[in-house]
């Protein structure tokens, strides 16, 4: 038997052992995927014993074992440790005639090995992990060509199963990693959000006190600067709030109350709060809301209407009309918000409810917003077992439709 051709046998063996550890099959439970291979080898080669072995540092361990009542042997007594030195099938026709094995305890005592034929098995990384081998307690002439072919095919099958095991583990690990990354991202947003609020409270508070004249009356120019600072701080605060809302909606950790809410009341509250902004933008509201009861969280539903109407105003020209309607449609409550703005091309509609969707669209960027408003709308609506959709075409304006299950109406 020739020794390994590697110039650094110890380094090569260390690498092989690392690959064996990476395969992570040592000391795992029996698996049918490997047992069916050894059963087939046993039958095809008419052998009392068939094994899939993994050659470890000090032992060989049997991933699958037919006809033998043990799960491992010392490596020093291992035939397979010899077999894995090359890619070829190693045949020991009669152990009593082979000086390497004549004194082997597996030959001189149970299981009294006389005949051995082992085909090395490569890991997906290309390292020889162990063998698929058949063993007889009687000597044999040699291995027939048909038996060689069968052993070679079955070994290829076993290597395929190694790959399947490695791949399914890789998929599991990737999914776990994705989950961890997602979780970490949510945590970062949450912690950052809270950490941003404290300094923002200090900034917004100081600016507010200055604007209120607590430090004395401000000259006109200073007053304008403070107003600008207040406006931009408020914008930053909205962004932080929106980010936290999106994060909580994505994580499913936003508490949603379950109360009877009149959707018409919700619209009234939202419109009332937006009146000053509408006046500034010279946008007129046309509200037609009939009372329709839904189950949910009034504050969150007000947020839905506010975000949709705010969005509609952003895309409205001066003096334009924004229509808001609430109606019942069978078991659904239907809210529609329509603007007469520039509308959107179909490719933009597909991503309009995604987080930061607006960041992709250059034209809309001038209209200040976090790009999170519609993502929050969808998150809240879905948390209420509802759906939101949009119809739009360029030049025609857009209509957003929210459908929520009506309360106590067979839904």
């Amino acid at each position, binding site marked *: 038997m020739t020794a390994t051709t590697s110039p650094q046998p110890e380094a090569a063996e260390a690498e092989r052992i690392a690959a064996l550890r990476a395969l992570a099959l040592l000391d795992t439970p029996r698996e049918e995927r490997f047992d069916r291979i050894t059963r087939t080898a046993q039958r095809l080669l008419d052998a009392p014993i068939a094994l899939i072995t993994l050659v470890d540092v000090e032992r060989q361990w049997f991933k699958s074992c037919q006809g033998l009542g043990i799960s491992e042997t010392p490596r020093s007594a291992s035939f397979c440790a010899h077999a894995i030195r090359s890619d070829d099938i190693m045949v020991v026709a009669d152990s009593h005639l082979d000086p390497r094995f004549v004194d082997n305890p597996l030959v001189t005592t149970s299981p009294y090995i006389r005949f051995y034929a082992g085909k090395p098995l490569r890991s997906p990384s290309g390292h020889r992990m162990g063998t698929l081998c058949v063993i007889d307690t009687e000597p044999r002439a040699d291995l027939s060509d048909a038996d060689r072919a069968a052993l070679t095919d079955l070994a290829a099958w076993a290597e395929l199963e190694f790959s399947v095991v490695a791949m399914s583990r890789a998929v599991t690990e990737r999914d776990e990693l994705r989950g961890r990354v997602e979780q970490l991202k949510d945590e970062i947003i949450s912690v950052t*959000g*809270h950490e941003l*609020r*404290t300094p*923002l*409270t*200090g*900034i*917004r*508070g*100081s600016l*507010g*006190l200055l*604007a*209120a004249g*607590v430090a004395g009356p401000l000259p006109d120019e200073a007053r304008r600067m403070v107003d600008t600072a207040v406006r931009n*701080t408020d914008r930053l*605060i909205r962004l932080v*709030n929106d980010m*936290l809302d999106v994060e909580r909606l994505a994580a499913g950790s936003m*508490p949603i109350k379950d109360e009877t809410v009149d959707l018409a009341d919700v619209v009234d509250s939202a419109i009332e709060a937006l009146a000053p902004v509408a006046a500034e933008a010279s946008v007129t509201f046309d509200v037609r809301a009939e009372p329709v009861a839904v189950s949910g969280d009034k504050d969150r539903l007000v947020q839905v209407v506010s975000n949709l109407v705010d969005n509609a105003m952003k895309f409205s020209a001066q003096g334009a009309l924004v229509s808001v309607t609430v109606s019942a449609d069978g078991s659904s409550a239907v809210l529609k918000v329509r603007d007469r703005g520039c509308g959107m091309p179909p490719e933009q509609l597909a991503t309009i409810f995604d987080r930061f969707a607006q960041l992709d669209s250059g034209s809309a960027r001038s209209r200040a917003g976090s790009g999170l408003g519609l993502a929050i709308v969808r998150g809240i609506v879905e948390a209420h077992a509802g759906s939101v959709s949009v119809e739009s075409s360029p030049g025609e304006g857009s209509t957003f439709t929210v459908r929520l299950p009506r309360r106590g109406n067979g839904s």
Partner: protein
Amino acid sequence: MTHRVLVIDDEPDIREITQLSLERLAGWHVETAGNGVDGEAMAVRERPEAILLDVMMPELDGEATARAIRAHSETRDTPIVLMSAATQLPEWAAELGVRGLVAKPFDPMTLADAVRGHLNW
């Protein structure tokens, strides 16, 4: 009408802004404490009409402080309004008789109105 309130918050800047806002803009009298232990002692000693309590504080947090305050007969029924970076009342709020929440960041111009609203003043 002059109200006497106690502000408990670990952030000195927030304490100062809250105090300036409520004293200078609303004309209230404000005492401040920088941690839950001092806040509890001050609450019992000064008997304020209401307590504005930060939720996230090191060592004694908002909940522990509220529990400590409620354990004294002098402050068993003193109205507590939370000031928090969270936008919703924590679970323990109802049990400890919390009257409402002022979300941080707040507008100092309207802080007194927000507190009044929670206390029906």
